[in-house]
């Protein structure tokens, strides 16, 4: 399906043009330009949702142009059911990031807004790129703006955090570059991601390539032993930086696994599954435990991200419909929910200039609206049925159940712990007695902050109650990935639906299962 309008180029270039423009204006106009650019970008991205052909597993909105002739590298973009929700999540979040920084960023506003806009362009580019070199360029181009966002506008320990973030991610991704070059020569002298996903590679080569991919993607996710940059970066980054990091950047690692590792290296992916599952479960439990012990709100959310992203990698390596769809759902949901939590922290930090839980207790009385938002985001984060996170985590757990019951039991621990640390946090922050000297600072959320938070609340319930629009769009693409990893996947999918582990408690999840089984059966001869 081709469209005459270059949707994706517009999506990528508009923020970049905006970034160039803000350098030439005053601070107040810089904010307006940044807001306008992100909002228009959102408006451009919305039609894609409806124009997208949900029945197709092919790349859509394709664009292709020769970029470098020797070796032939193309400027090639396209979206499928996996990248579409992620692009939309990005475009939804970016205006909110601009809004939350409206007053909290006072120095070098132009540069700050320019960095946000460059980030947006690069992030959309990463999700849309269909040429491996183009992907890598976008992937790496994000490093410098993010480094500056943390290092220039960050907290007290920002220099350390920024450098740590930079070196961790750079070291991971340079190995990716070598892997890309090796793939070029082994996969038929092309950087086309789709062609490379069709080729077959020897087992030993897959082993090494998987490790190289792992180095790049696992650092970004971040998976268990490589996660230590995350709490530092999250805590020191300004609010918008934390939101971008948690909501979008972490997804890129998981996206890398599902877009590259699984389809290109199916054999290695299978043989590495036990390791990936173990690391994921460690991340789920360890992240949750660490979150329990945090006194700093941002650190708490950072560790909860480690835990939640553990579900994503767990689901991805189950190689069944529920697991991978659940993982992609969880990616989107984590972006929305954790983005919301970080925005909440940003709101309170603007008032009390402290992120410590002990300094921000008892907010319900002085800030009732704020407390409501916080409770909603926290409940969503712990996976309350009816909210978005429930759908993703539940599907991941079902997918895991089919593979190993012990793994499922262990991963479920993470949900219990999530309930513990989030409810405990809510109990203290929302329902304590505020310190008297803090009271004058505690004014409730204003109009701008309402506008920032409400869209996420709407999305939380919309996705929580009606996940099907997203699931149906991603379904063919996910099946394609599974068919690459397990050529016998269709039969497996149907056995899965015959077991039908969906309890009929939540209507819409069952709906999903119906869709899954219906489509799986439909393919049976």
């Amino acid at each position, binding site marked *: 399906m081709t469209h005459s309008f270059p949707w994706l180029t517009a999506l990528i270039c508009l923020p970049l043009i905006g970034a160039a423009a803000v350098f030439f204006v005053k601070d107040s106009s810089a904010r307006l330009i940044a807001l306008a650019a992100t909002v228009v970008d959102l408006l451009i991205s919305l039609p894609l949702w409806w124009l997208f052909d949900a029945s197709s597993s092919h790349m859509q909105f394709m664009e292709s142009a020769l*970029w*470098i*002739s*020797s*070796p032939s590298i193309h400027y090639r973009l396209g979206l499928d059911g996996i990248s579409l929700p992620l692009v939309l999540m990005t475009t939804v979040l970016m205006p909110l990031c601009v809004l939350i920084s409206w007053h909290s960023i006072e120095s070098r506003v132009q540069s700050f807004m320019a960095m946000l806009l460059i980030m947006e362009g690069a992030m959309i580019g990463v999700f849309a790129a269909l040429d491996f*070199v183009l992907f*890598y*360029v976008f992937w*790496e*181009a994000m*490093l*410098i703006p993010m*480094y*500056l966002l943390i*290092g*220039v506008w960050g907290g007290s320990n*920002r*220099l350390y955090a*920024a*450098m740590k973030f*930079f*070196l961790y991610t*750079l*070291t991971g991704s*340079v*190995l990716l*570059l*070598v892997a890309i*070059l*090796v793939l*070029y*020569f082994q996969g038929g002298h092309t950087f086309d991601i789709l062609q490379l996903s069709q080729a077959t590679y020897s087992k030993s080569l897959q082993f090494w390539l998987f490790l190289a991919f792992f180095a790049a993607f696992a650092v970004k996710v971040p998976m268990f032993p490589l996660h230590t940059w995350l709490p530092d970066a999250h805590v020191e980054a300004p609010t918008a930086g934390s939101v971008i990091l948690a909501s979008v950047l972490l997804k890129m690692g998981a996206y890398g696994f599902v877009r590259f590792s699984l389809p290109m290296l199916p054999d290695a992916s299978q043989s590495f599954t036990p390791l990936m599952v173990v690391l994921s479960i460690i991340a789920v439990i360890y992240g949750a435990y660490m979150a329990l012990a945090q006194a700093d709100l941002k650190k708490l959310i950072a560790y909860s991200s480690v835990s939640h992203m553990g579900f994503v990698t767990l689901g991805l390596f189950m190689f069944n419909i529920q697991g991978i769809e659940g993982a992609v759902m969880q990616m989107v949901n984590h972006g929305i929910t954790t983005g919301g939590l970080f925005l909440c922290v940003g709101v309170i930090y603007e008032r009390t200039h402290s992120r410590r839980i002990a300094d921000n207790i008892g907010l319900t009385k002085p800030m009732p609206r704020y407390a409501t938002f916080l409770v909603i985001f926290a409940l969503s984060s712990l996976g309350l049925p009816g909210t978005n996170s429930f759908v993703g985590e539940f599907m991941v757990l079902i997918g895991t159940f089919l593979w190993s019951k012990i793994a499922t039991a262990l991963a479920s621990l993470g949900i219990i712990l999530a309930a513990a640390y989030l409810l405990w946090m809510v109990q203290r922050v929302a329902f304590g007695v505020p310190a008297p000297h803090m009271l004058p600072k505690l004014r409730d959320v204003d109009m701008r902050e309402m506008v920032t938070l409400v869209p996420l609340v709407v999305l939380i319930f919309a996705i929580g109650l009606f996940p099907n629009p997203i699931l149906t769009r991603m379904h063919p693409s996910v099946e394609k990935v599974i068919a690459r990893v397990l050529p016998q996947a269709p039969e497996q999918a149907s056995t899965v639906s015959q077991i039908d582990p969906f309890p009929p408690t939540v209507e819409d999840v069952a709906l999903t299962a119906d869709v899954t089984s219906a489509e799986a059966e439909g393919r049976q001869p």
Partner: protein
Amino acid sequence: MTFPVGDLFLILPELLVITAACIVLVLDPVLRPSDKDGLVWLSLGTLAICMGLTASQMRAPVEAFNGLVIIDMYGAFWKLLLYFVTGLTILLSHSYLKEERLYFGEYYGFVLLALAGMMVMVSAADLLTIYLGSELMSLALYVMAGLKRSEPRSLEASAKYFVLGAFSSGILLYGISLLYGATGSTRLPAIATAIAGQSLDDPLLLFATILLAVGFGFKLAVVPFHMWTPDVYEGAPTSVTAFMAVASKAASFGAFLRVFIEGLGGLKANWSAIFLLICLATLVLGNVVALVQTNIKRMLAYSSIAHAGYALIGVVAAGRLENSSGLASVLLYLALYTFMTFGAFAVAAMLRKDGMEGDEIEDFTGLSKRHPVAALLMLIFMVSLAGIPPTAGFIGKFYVFMSAVEAGMPWLAVIALIFAAVSAYYYLRVVMVMYMREPSDATDRAPQLVMSPAFSIVLACTAAGVVIFGIYPNPVVQLAMQAVSTLR
């Protein structure tokens, strides 16, 4: 044998540059100080004419002077690069010398003489012509390095450069004489025919190859022949440092590749192994030692050593590959390296503190507040040197690593890339002090960047090169590929 007068037209660019150099040297004493800007214009004009002449010479190879000189695409590529660098050097020097109160008109004469030497080096088809060119280049550079006569560091740099340079020239000459003994010729094509089918079993050939490698190793400043580089780069006037780090390195690579491909191409497998060791040592030492430098010029010196290591990856790959993609990657790397390194040195040159050069990395503290645009450009140069897209530095590294992988050495690419990540640390430290540190005293004693039109042109050219070729490298890539296609 009659003198081939017609061949003089082929070396017209060289002749023009030498003539201009002589005119500058003669005019300098008779001109009033206020008129000395004319020398700058004269030099730039000469470069512009030469650029046109060389561009018209980009065609099939033609030999001149009985095979002493060859005019081909390969030489033209390097010459165009050298004109560009020399032009930037003259522009930068114009501002820099004024700040340093060095009013030597003959400076421009020496720049042009060095350029003439480099041009001879890259279009020589005979080892002795190469030697001649490299001596002409070196002698001019020795003088230029010691131009700050009141500064002991500058004199030390000059003396050190001279002693080690003369030493390395001796080694080079010894290698040439041994090669002559082994093959009976100093002409590269004749050498190639003589050693066809031979291996390094012949001790004469073995020693000749090693001595040539060592001799060129000094000129390229690769480990373990790099010791002179940090001291010379630090002590020499910064405009001269920039010229040495970029132009002299490019010309040396140009001659070096021609000797080892056209002359010793039959021994590819053997010298490739030698350069593999040198390359690894250069990457490791250059990057690791750069980590602990506090002086920006020393840091950039080690960085330029490390970059020679990256370019050597392409040379190693070229030794193992049948096609010319390895060679093309070296040319491309050095062309792109030019922009970012020259830009970084230019910013370092014009950062002044109390009438002196602010050449400590700490002097960049808070530069983004005082000079946002210059700080942004320095950021771009640093990011590019670290090899992060979308800058020219990434494109250069991409092609070099690609040739390494093509030659079946992905492990070499892995090692080099890990050290590229290491290098990001010291490049980003400059970014960090510029953007993330508050200046301790916000007084007027803080280092200031002295802006001038010429300096702005230098910054604009280099930054534009870094950004444009980072996003759309096709023209340079094509040029580099065409250039190596004429190498035999």
